[in-house]
Structures are given as C-alpha cells and as structure tokens.
C-alpha cells in the first residue's frame, strides 16, 4: 500500500525540476507557478507566485462567467473576433454572447464552461503555457467527493497538480498576519478563531483551533447573499408588480445599502422601472431580508462556540471573524456581538475581516500551496 507514495517525485516544491509535458503536444519548461484559486459561484479570485518566496505575481478577481460568442456576429464587434470571452469581458459583451456560469451553489454545474474558465485562469498565471502549475483550490465546506472529483476532472490537463481545501479554513489562513504570529496580544486565527464566511450560496461557519477542522467543526448554512437577493426580489415584486428589476440590480442595491439591525428608515433608492426613474423607500425590504441572515446563522455560531473546550472558549469569543461578501452588510458585526452578549456569552468580540475580504481565501490558498509538502499534492494525469 505504500508504493504509490514512494512513486511520487521527492523533490521539494521550491526546486524547479524538469517536468514531462502534462498536455499532449507541449513541452514544459523548468518553471513552477503556484496558484491560490478561490473558485466562487459569482466571482473567483486568483493569486499566483513562484515557490520559495512570498512574492505575488498576479492578483486578480474575475467574475465566474464564460461567454460563448453567438453565431453571426459581425467581424470586429468582438475584439480579435474571439469566440469565447471570460469574466468582465464576457459581461461587457452581454448582448453578443451566451453567458454561462460554470458553478451553481458552489459546485460545478457546467463542466465544459468550468474547464474553459480554468484554462483562462491558467493563461492569466502562465501566459507562456510552459510552466508546471500547482493550484490550491478552495471548495465549499460541505463539498462532497463527487463535487471535488468534478473540479479535478475539469482541471485535468490544465493544472499539473492540485489540492482542494475547504474555503473557511483557507480564509483563516489568508487572514492570519504571519508577521505577528507569536507576538504578545496577537490571537492567531489559525490557532483559535471562529470564522464566519458569508458567500453567495452558503454561509460557512468554522471553528479553527490549531488543527485542521473536522467535519464537526464546520457548519454550512444554505442561506447567504443570493437568498437575501431572492427575499428582496420577492418583496419588491409584491410591492411593485412588474418592476422589471433584474437580479443583478437587486444584488447591486443590497451591496450598496444592505444592513442588519434596527430599521434605517428613510432609505431612498433611485431605480429605473419601465424606463422611468423612481425613488423608492427600501429600508424595510432590505432590513428584513438582511436580518434573516443573522437569524439563520446564529444557531450554527452558538453550536460551534459551545463545542470549543472550556480552556479555549474565552479566547475564541475574542476572535470571531466575519468575512465574505455578507461581511459588508452594515452593522452585521455589532448586531451579532450584541446578540451573543445578550445571550450571556463572555465578552464576545466580533470583527470584520475588512475590505480585502474577497482575497482571503485565495491568499490562504497560495500560502497552502507554498507550505504543502511534495507528497501532499495530487497529480492530475493528462
């Protein structure tokens, strides 16, 4: 049973080694590129850099969409007469492409588009197409083996080696300030923290206590940004039938005005309905939808707090960190903190990960790529 391990190359990741071509017809150079890849349903973040250094060569957020150019588009309309567009460029050419989001609910729903998207990511991190690519990819905390296998299958022939790691843990690793680890007063999030990652499809709550979180340390709640959008849409449809507001517009309203806590009336928002400008008061619509999130995740938060040992729980309560798009809702930290305090938890402190929240998973993934042992990578056969 040990032969498979022994067959793996023993060279450390920071030593460039000549590698055989993993894609037919290509000959790889000795260069190795490490990639941290946060593969999101709506947006993905990719970071890359060389092994054996802390340099980041590429840091990019890309909408997770692939646009297949429709037949019959006049020459010159699409730059370079490309047949496939990605990310922002696909969004800009919405009228001329069939837009496909490779992921739904955090898992791959359209394998061909996912593969094209991976290929695009590869072209960003290695324009030469010659390097050996080792990617750490963030996956939802509740992703099962079939979902993981789909990612591996789509990455086959695109990346050379891969490691799939749950996103909340990568967020903790990315949020960790390595320069302060060991300093007095610094609570290392990897050693003792509760991470709340509010994404598009799920809110993942994860107890991180110096070891890799077990399944019991992670709870994934199927309520997050998209569900809030849906609640807002439903209420807007009831109040303003045939309003014509797209999901994209509703999301934009939420991202600009989202809040939790007491009503922030008046909250006037200008929207275009039927081509005419209207100013509508949306404080209750937004407040009700966003406050639902707190109600949905609170039981999971307290469940994990109560799972921590009595030795660690007081420090843990000082290190509750909220990240992901949902962390941008105004007042989320203070409302959650107050609710915990009102319920008798010992001086809880909830903090927001900050403006860089979109990158923490990818930062953690790149750190993991740099720290992984040679025998921990999974080889992707061509």
């Amino acid at each position: 049973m040990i032969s498979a391990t022994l067959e793996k190359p023993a060279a450390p990741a920071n030593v460039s080694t000549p590698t055989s071509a993993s894609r037919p017809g290509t000959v790889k150079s000795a260069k190795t590129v490490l990639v941290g890849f946060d593969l999101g349903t709506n947006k993905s973040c990719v970071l890359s850099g060389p092994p054996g250094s802390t340099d980041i060569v590429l840091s990019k957020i890309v909408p997770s969409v692939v646009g297949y150019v429709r037949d019959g588009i006049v020459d010159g309309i699409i730059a370079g007469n490309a047949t496939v567009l990605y990310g922002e460029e696909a969004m800009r050419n919405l009228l001329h492409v069939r837009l496909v989001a490779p992921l739904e609910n955090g898992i791959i729903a359209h394998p061909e588009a996912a593969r094209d998207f991976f290929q695009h990511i590869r072209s960003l991190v290695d324009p030469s197409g010659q390097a050996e690519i080792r990617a750490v990819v963030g996956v939802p905390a509740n992703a099962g083996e079939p979902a993981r296998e789909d990612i591996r299958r789509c990455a086959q022939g695109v990346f050379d080696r891969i490691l799939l790691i749950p996103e909340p843990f990568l967020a903790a690793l990315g949020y960790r300030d390595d320069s302060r680890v060991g300093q007095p007063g610094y609570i290392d999030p990897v050693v003792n923290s509760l991470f709340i990652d509010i994404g598009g499809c799920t809110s993942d709550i994860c107890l991180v206590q110096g070891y890799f979180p077990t399944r019991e340390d992670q709870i994934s709640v199927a309520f997050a940004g998209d569900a809030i959008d849906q609640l807002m849409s439903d209420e807007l449809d009831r109040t303003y039938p045939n309003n014509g507001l797209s999901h994209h517009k509703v999301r934009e309203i939420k991202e600009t005005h989202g809040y939790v806590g007491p009503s922030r009336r008046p909250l006037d928002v200008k929207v275009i309905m039927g081509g005419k400008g209207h100013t509508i008061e949306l404080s209750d619509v937004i407040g009700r939808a966003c406050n639902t999130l707190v109600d949905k995740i609170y039981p999971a938060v307290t469940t994990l707090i109560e799972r921590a040992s009595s030795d660690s729980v007081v420090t843990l309560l000082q290190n509750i960190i909220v990240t992901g798009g949902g962390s941008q809702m105004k007042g989320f930290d203070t409302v959650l903190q107050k609710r915990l305090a009102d319920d008798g938890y010992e001086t809880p402190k909830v903090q927001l990960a900050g403006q860089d929240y979109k990158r923490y998973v990818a930062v953690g993934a790149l750190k993991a790529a740099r720290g992984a042992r040679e025998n921990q990578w999974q080889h992707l056969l061509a």
Partner: protein
Amino acid sequence: MLHLYRRICVLRATGEAFAASRLESDELPRAVAEATAAGIPEDSWPLRFAAEEKRVADAELLAELLVPLLAERLPWPRSPATAGLSAVLDAFPAKSAARPEPGAPPPTVADLIEGMLAQERGEHRQRATRRAS
C-alpha cells in the same frame, strides 16, 4: 486483474482519487472483459473487489498504527537512504495532525494539510469498510 483493482484502492487511499478514477474507467473494464473471456465468472468480481478493498483498508490501518511506533523506536536520520521511508512517515503522521497539546507551537501549514488528508483517508477507509462488510 486483482492487482489492478488493488492499485486503484491504493491510489484512493493515498489521495490520488483522480488517477484511481482514470484506471477504474479506462483499464478496469478491459481487464474484466479479458478475465471473463478467460472463464472467470463475471458475478464473482464484486466479492473479489470487496475483498481487495478490505485488504487495502486493513493495510492502511496497520500502517497508521505501526509507523508512529517505528518512528518513536527507530530515531534514524532522514538520509537519502531512508528518503522513501520518510515519505511514508510524512504520509502517515498518525495523530500529529490532530488536536495539539495546550501550549504547543502553532502548527505548520503542511501539518494542517496533513490533518485534512488524514481525515479524507479516514472517511475513505470508512466508506470502503462499509462497502466490504
């Protein structure tokens, strides 16, 4: 034939799920067809496969128990001559990746990843044992 299936089980146990799937979808059907053509009854394969899965799962469990004991009792330097064994030790860190002792230094990223991989191996072993029993 059984050697091929054992190889698939080993690949799964060592986290090479993708390579295992490739062998399972590409080579195994061909090998089964050849063996059936050679007169081995087709309906005997599920039992034989289950037995191989159990053998690999048992061997993995044994290694997990044995390797830390050997590591404790044989404090060899990790020289090139023992590099292969070192790789095995790295692959089976036993409980080192589990909950740290209070006051222990922060784990390295590789230790944390090892913890994740150990969990995955454990879950796979449980699935294999359930299938075999």
